[in-house]
């Protein structure tokens, strides 16, 4: 797939995975440039479960459980990737998001973007994360020894998504 080619629906589906299983960020990063001579930049992001929830919390979380909306999750991630593909000159995108129970230190999400130039790769990678945070139907529940609670949405995430301007992706 070159940066000028339209993004086929099959490619869009292939580049998004929603799964309970862990993933290998190293293998995913390598796959974005493997066998290619036109990729100049690969930007990646890995999000992980943190134990430390700040001074306001009584104790560290023991388990974080991610609920999602099967079907809509994949569709929304594909829409986010399609929009990134339209906004920047990209050569490859990979998005993996896990669901189910995760313990601190475990990986939650991977976003990797390949492009000829670093500006496009960085911008698209950060854009996908910002939109994913505010548009993809995932919900986090944190359990501590004292009990569980659902994580509130953060205004800073809405602000981060808003700086990319008016989306075609609905939210």
């Amino acid at each position, binding site marked *: 797939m070159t940066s000028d080619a339209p993004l086929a629906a099959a490619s869009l589906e292939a580049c998004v995975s929603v799964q309970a299983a862990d993933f290998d960020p190293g293998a995913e990063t390598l796959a974005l440039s493997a066998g290619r001579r036109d990729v100049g930049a690969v930007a990646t992001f890995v*999000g992980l479960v943190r134990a430390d929830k700040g001074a306001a919390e009584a104790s560290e979380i023991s388990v974080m459980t*991610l*609920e*999602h*909306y099967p*079907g*809509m999750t994949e*569709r*929304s991630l594909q829409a986010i990737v399609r929009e990134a593909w339209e906004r920047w000159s990209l050569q490859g995108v990979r998005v993996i*998001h896990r669901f189910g129970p995760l313990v601190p230190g475990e990986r*939650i*999400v991977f976003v990797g973007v390949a492009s000829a130039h670093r500006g496009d790769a960085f911008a698209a990678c950060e854009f996908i*994360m910002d939109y*994913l*945070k*505010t*548009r*993809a*139907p*995932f*919900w*986090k*529940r944190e359990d501590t020894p004292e009990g569980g609670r*659902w*994580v*509130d*949405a*953060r205004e800073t*995430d809405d602000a981060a998504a808003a700086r990319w301007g008016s989306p075609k992706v*609905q*939210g």
Partner: protein
Amino acid sequence: MSVKVLYFASLRESLGYSHETLTLPPTIATLGDLRAHLARRGGVWEALGDGHNVRAAINQEMAGPDALVQPRDEIAFFPPVTGG
């Protein structure tokens, strides 16, 4: 008309179930109408009423209160998302 309604996360937990099939009275044309209809059940269902931070999707696309509800739609209600 009949629609399928799904609930997620804290909303699913407080309501006590994750989905239902509803036969709607003809007065319900929009997503906003449906939210008000469900909120009138009272108790925990008031969480779906006006002023509560609940998002919605129709057929797996985010939708606002003016979106039209059609027969056999899959309609979902959920709190603001917190993935990533």
